[in-house]
């Protein structure tokens, strides 16, 4: 039901992102999706990768502050209004979204959302009730 996402604390200095992503590259880890939120001082890098536990280990060994969180991955139709419709379903149930990011798939008519919501179960129930596709961890890691 949930997929594992890595959050990495990143100081805002040049070259830091390159160093961090090189660390996981050396561990042979493939990135599926990423997003970064930042202020002027620091940022949080969020990653969905093919081997989340190995990635966590590699990043911790490199001395970074890391956490693994359960997030929801939703498949949505890649057409005008596809995203808006999905959002309406969650909003109807009053589920707050902490953050999200999206990417399109190799199939030309699918897109995926990675969502961190206040109440995972409530969000999934709302999405499933409206026929949305909830992706399992394995299916996302193998994308």
């Amino acid at each position: 039901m949930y997929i594992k996402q890595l959050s990495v604390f990143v100081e805002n200095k040049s070259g830091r992102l390159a160093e961090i992503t090189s660390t996981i590259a050396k561990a042979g880890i493939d990135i599926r999706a990423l997003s970064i939120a930042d202020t002027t001082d620091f940022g949080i890098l969020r990653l969905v990768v093919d081997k989340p536990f190995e990635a966590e280990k590699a990043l911790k060994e490199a001395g970074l502050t890391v956490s693994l969180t359960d997030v929801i991955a939703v498949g949505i139709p890649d057409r005008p209004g596809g995203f808006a419709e999905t959002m309406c379903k969650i909003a109807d149930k009053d589920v707050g979204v902490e953050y999200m990011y999206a990417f399109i798939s190799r199939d030309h008519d699918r897109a995926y959302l990675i969502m961190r919501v206040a109440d995972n179960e409530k969000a999934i129930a709302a999405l499933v009730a409206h026929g949305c596709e909830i992706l399992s961890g394995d299916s996302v890691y193998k994308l």
Partner: protein
Amino acid sequence: MENRIFNRDMECMPRKELEALQLERLKSLVDYCEKNSKFYAERLKKAGVTADKIKCLSDIEYIPYTTKDDLRDTYPFGMLSVPKEKIVRVHASSGTTGNPTVVAYTREDLENWSEQVARLAMAAGAHEGTTVQICFGYGMFTGALGLHYGLEKIGAVVVPTSSGNTEKQLKFMRDFQTDAIVATPSYCMYLAEAARSMQDKYPMSSYNLKYGILGSEGSTPEMRTEIENHWGNGFFCTDNYGMSELNGPGMSGECMYRDGLHINEDHFYCEVIDSVSGRTLDKGSTGELVVTNLTKRGLPMIRYRTKDITNINYDACKCGRTTARMHKIIGRSDDMIKVRGVNVFPSQVESALIGINGISPNYLIVLRREGYSDSMEVRVELVDGSLLDRYGELVALQKRIHDNIKNILGIEIKVNLVEPNSIERFTGKAKRVLDLRNEK
């Protein structure tokens, strides 16, 4: 704990009488130095001060300060004001840099010193018949022998175990049913941890320890609580203060109310000065403590700059003593930095960070000049990954650190969270301040 006072006449004297006694003793000290101390006679002459010119206590400000360098420069016996044969004891500081500082005592000096220690030891809970283990290292260091003689004076059962050999310390503590220990805060904590690790064999209830008479290094109230909880069973710690240049331990100590350290004012006249300008500050201000030992004769000490930062409260204490109380040492004047005209000690930032979860105790203060104003940034390492889930939690953590530090320092600062281990580690004394204000 019972409120016992060793020398009610001196410790509870009305302040007016106390100040009159201080003035009388100051005059006789100056007179004595003019006649007997080559070192001070020269200084007093240069400053144009004689005993009869001293009309009130603040006239002491005409006499120049004495510093640790004076003691080093006159090593070993250049500041003695009696022939060496009249000295009955010599102590010395460790002297990590350059010559050690040597101090010397006449028989009368030792008697006064014991009296001073007896008072603080009784304020800390010891009395006749109390079994006290002295876990300070005996030797050239003044701590152990200072407490030793003071405790004997009040009739305590003194057990001079010295420092080290923890298992033996604990064995005596159980077998003798030791009531109190004299130790540094860190050794007292170490002993408690060692006792706890042997609980299977010797439960904590096999100890009778009630009082910790702690000194020779500073401790925060948080550390004190931790030590007390470690020993448990109502263990009660007090802090005392002194330094070899001013006899040793005995200058001041906490009573059961622990609201400042009572100064033995009939023996010590204290001033608080601005350590940069050298100006004497108003009563109650925070600054460098300067102490005159009014009764010491073997090696007199007038206006000694301690480099310790504190403030003094002259209000009467609940315990009945009228002697002024000095605040626990806030910092060292050597560590002090000035930011936008405000005195800042790294130790203040340290205490603001205690109790905040998710960060390491390591920090770095970075000072910059922006336009004509100073800016202060505090870098703190984030170690707890669980805060990364919600951005708001990181912002809240940053705000909590900011508010804590700002409340203590009273100036605006900027907090920056940085990655773990990104602040340089030091094996010895940590470097906590990076001052970039004069860099272009």
